[in-house]
């Protein structure tokens, strides 16, 4: 078991090293000079001398290989360093922003589950019935509208026409809980909408399949209440695949909430990544990508270990 664990952890570290190297190389290849960009914001330009002086301040005058090794050494010590744009701590910024991205994903997922599981179950139980046809139709429609379009429409109706919610932005919960929740409504709902369509489809299909099994017929035949049959014999079995899909989707969302964060001005991790890429803030881009990659790899590691505990045969492979 210990050997298996060590192997897996070593593999995870190698994977992170590979991710780090790829992202470092990509940033070297991508054109754009952070010093010149910073002094050209908005379309002006500084003198070549000023740009060169700033490059020295940013440490970009050092050879690429030297930059690469100091990046590896710092990362190994969990040192993300500072932004080359304004010298602020990158670790602090990630610590501030990651929870916000997790918040809209988390709240969105809860909302999606609350709506999609009952509706999906009902549609599955009445497969082919009127409710199923309508629910599936609405679901197909919602699936086909991208999040940023939903976002723009939401802002138009709720902020500009009805004026019941702010158009976007962020206030910390600790500062003003009511306003924080107001600002959370639209982005979380937008995330939820997309996620709900996927959960609905999975739940419906899974319930549809389960309800045809023998044990359901048996349970019904022995006179169990309908609600009990559904809960204990259909849903419990049907939710396995749904949970797997939700888990996968949450991972994907971590990297793809960019548009939703942008549309609503929600200052999460993805928005920070976009700005950092635009400014060619190399250390910040690297740190964010490594953080997200580490979360992914870490989750996989935990799942691997859990599986191996459940099924010892996996350890042998």
């Amino acid at each position, binding site marked *: 078991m210990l050997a298996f664990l060590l192997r897996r952890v070593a593999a995870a570290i190698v994977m992170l090293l590979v991710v780090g190297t790829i992202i470092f190389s990509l940033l070297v290849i991508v054109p754009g000079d952070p010093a010149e960009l910073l002094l050209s914001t908005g379309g002006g330009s500084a003198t070549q001398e000023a740009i060169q002086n700033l490059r020295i301040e940013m440490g970009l005058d050092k050879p690429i290989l030297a930059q690469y090794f100091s990046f590896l050494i710092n990362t190994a010590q969990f040192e993300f360093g500072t932004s080359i744009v304004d010298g602020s701590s990158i670790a602090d910024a990630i610590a501030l922003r990651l929870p916000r991205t997790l918040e809209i994903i988390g709240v969105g997922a809860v909302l999606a589950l609350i709506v999609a599981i009952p509706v999906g179950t009902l549609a599955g139980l009445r497969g082919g019935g009127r409710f199923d046809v309508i629910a599936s139709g609405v679901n197909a429609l919602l699936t086909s509208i991208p999040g940023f379009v939903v976002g723009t429409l939401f802002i138009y109706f709720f902020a500009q026409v009805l004026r019941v919610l702010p*158009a976007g932005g962020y206030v910390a919960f600790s500062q003003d809980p009511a306003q924080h929740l107001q600002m959370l409504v639209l982005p979380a709902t937008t995330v939820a909408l997309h996620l709900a369509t996927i959960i609905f489809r999975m739940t419906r299909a899974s319930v549809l399949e389960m309800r045809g099994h023998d044990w359901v017929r048996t349970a019904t035949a022995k006179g169990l209440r309908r609600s009990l049959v559904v809960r204990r014999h259909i849903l419990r079995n049907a939710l396995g695949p749904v949970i797997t899909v939700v888990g996968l989707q949450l991972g994907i969302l971590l990297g793809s909430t960019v548009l939703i964060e942008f549309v609503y001005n929600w*200052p999460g991790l993805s928005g920070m990544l976009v700005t950092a890429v635009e400014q060619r803030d190399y250390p910040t881009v690297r740190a964010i990508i490594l953080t997200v990659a580490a979360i992914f790899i870490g989750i996989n590691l935990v799942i691997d270990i859990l599986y191996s505990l459940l099924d010892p045969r996996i350890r042998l492979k």
Partner: protein
Amino acid sequence: MTPSLPMSMMPTRRSVLLSLGAGITAMALPRGSWAQGTDAVLKFGLSTFPPTVKPFDNTGGAANTVKLMIYRGLMGYDASGKLLPELAESYEWLEPTVAVFKLRANATFHNGKPVTAADVIFSLNEITKEGSTAFLKSDLAIITAVEAVDDKTVKITLSSPSAIFMDLMASYCCPIISAESTDGNDIGAGPFVMKSSEKGVYIELERYGAYYDEGGPNFGGIRFIAYADENLRFAALEAGDVDLIEYLPWTQFDAVEASDTMQMKSTLGPYMFLLFNVTEGPFADAKVRQAVGYAIERQDVVDAAFAGRGVPLYGLPNPQGSPFDLSNPAHEWTYDIEKAKALLAEAGYPNGFDCRLLATATYGMHQDTASVVQAYLAMIGINATLDLPDWGTRVTAGKEGKYDLAVHGTSGIYNDPDSLWSLLYSGNPSYLQSFGFKSARIDGLLEQGRTEVDTEKRKAVYQDLAAAYFEEVPQVPLNWRVQAYAMKKSVTGFEALPGFLNGSSAYALDETQLG
């Protein structure tokens, strides 16, 4: 799970609370509502979060707006764009190269200490010193000495006379900071003090109580909120989340004009133009560049890229508010496709040629401008392939000459033809200039114009510059853009400053009131 229920209730609760709050305030303060207004916080929607607010660097319009609220220089502008003494109380030219500034007795820095001659010496030295990244480093290299005559009097000596020195002293890149400033903690003397900020999200300033101007700002603080998406920025204003926004998207001008609750203030500020790679290929020939000048119907650029909110520009981009009228039909390109074709044929390209047209997808207006230009060039046989990378890549491509033809838009920093220096002077090449373009004639005229102090002689110099611009074609001008700030109707007294000073409009916040 639990938050979901209260959240769906929120809309009604919010509006009820708001109206309730407003009602109570109105009842409690029947006559004191004016006092309430002066302590209110102005919420200002920026187009981007300032990358830095270092006093002497130029990191874009949003940063400059914030800087003008925290820092002030010796000179400044009023809301009409008139040059005025700011931290200085008065100034005098002892000789054409020696200026003496008398500092205000009551001007203090945010640490409470008075603004003295030593601080002026410190600040100007920070700009001109070795290794500085200051925007005006090369412009202020003409300063040969800064001396303290007494605590409140400074004498500045220049190597040559300068017609634009006072404009430089009013720039958002030339504030006076305390000599006690340390790296990362610059102490200004502006109307507001930094209170708190979060990178990428907001910057909050509060009124500096001891600001020299006794009226002081008419409100208690400013909260700058960055809205990168222009439509969201407008939505935030319409929804009442913010009081004032910069960079109103052109497509929303109509909506603001038709609105009962919003208004806008705009001036013709920046301009759009084309740059060429003159080191190789057809564009090395001035005749081909002239042909491009004649080939484009500029009103179509204005209509397509700026929703009709702009003015065609046919010759030297002499800004609104410039001391001189340099217009001369003989030195302007009107739309004349026959002339364009004839010039191409004369240059040896009767059937046109293929080329790369560089713009950026980051800014819709650049991309749209490029599309219109592409269509018009096709009519004279020039087949341009659009290259639309992100802004960062575009800047590098421009600097390295990886293009044949490029779209750009920018503004000078003061209303004088000398403001075109960084765009035309070949001693300081950058992505703002045609790649490889050098003209001793244009450089010479720019130098002459800068050091000549006689108004009539300067005018003649710049008339010559307009002719040289037309003949040698360092760039092909397209149009002026209307640049607008939009605000609630209850926000009064704000003005967009004219011409190239549009980016310094934050000065007008000194006279702005919240209703």
